[in-house]
């Protein structure tokens, strides 16, 4: 079966909004999960404040990793934006992805007004495999849901 990354609509919207907010710099963050199901999103600071790269702020990263650990969550997704190129892993992304084995890399692009959201699994040997992003409507009772 081909892998699919399933994410609630609210999280995808948050990633896109974060990317637009931080443009022209790249944005970054993570989505925590449990058994492959997304549980919460952490929008993080790009310590590099750069239009061509991102680095998690080490102090913030420690807090986020602790929070995931305490809640028995795993690192499900590392997300970031590209500001001038397509939402596809750069060579730098491929190199750094070795540090997050098993995590999906979600990329968005702010190069135009169109929303681009793509997900990838990057193998240890650097092979990039795109996987579809399945956006599901938010369950009742989640923030932003008006029918609950």
């Amino acid at each position: 079966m081909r892998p699919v990354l399933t994410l609630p609509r609210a999280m995808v919207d948050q990633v896109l909004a974060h990317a637009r907010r931080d443009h022209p710099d790249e944005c970054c963050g993570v989505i925590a999960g449990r058994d492959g199901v997304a549980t919460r999103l952490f929008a993080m600071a790009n310590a590099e404040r750069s239009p061509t790269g991102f680095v998690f702020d080490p102090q913030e990263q420690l807090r986020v990793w602790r929070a995931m650990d305490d809640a028995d969550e795993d690192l499900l997704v590392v997300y970031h934006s590209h500001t001038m190129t397509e939402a596809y892993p750069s060579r730098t992304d491929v190199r750094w992805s070795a540090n997050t084995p098993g995590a999906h890399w979600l990329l968005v692009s702010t190069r135009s007004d169109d929303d681009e959201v793509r997900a990838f699994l990057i193998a240890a040997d650097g092979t990039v495999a795109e996987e579809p992003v399945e956006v599901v409507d938010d369950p009742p009772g989640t923030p932003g849901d008006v029918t609950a």
Partner: protein
Amino acid sequence: MAIEVRIPTILRTYTGGEKAVEGTGDSLSSLLADLDSRHSGLRDRLVTGEGGLHRFVNVYVNDEDVRFLGGLETPLKDGDSVTVLPAVAGG
């Protein structure tokens, strides 16, 4: 004296799968040398050939990033806790 060192998943191949190991040393540098005597290869994943910390890892002493404490010369004392995390970055 014992210092607890928390090891991230990607480096647990050096610790036989252990999430945390104990070591001794009065500085981060001597702690890593001590750890390497039992977990051979671990130090090379943290320290560059030039003797600085790899940018691929973050090392914290009592939850403070050692880059702001004194790097490898950061002093340690009994009961301190050291955490290693893989850095996350991209382009």
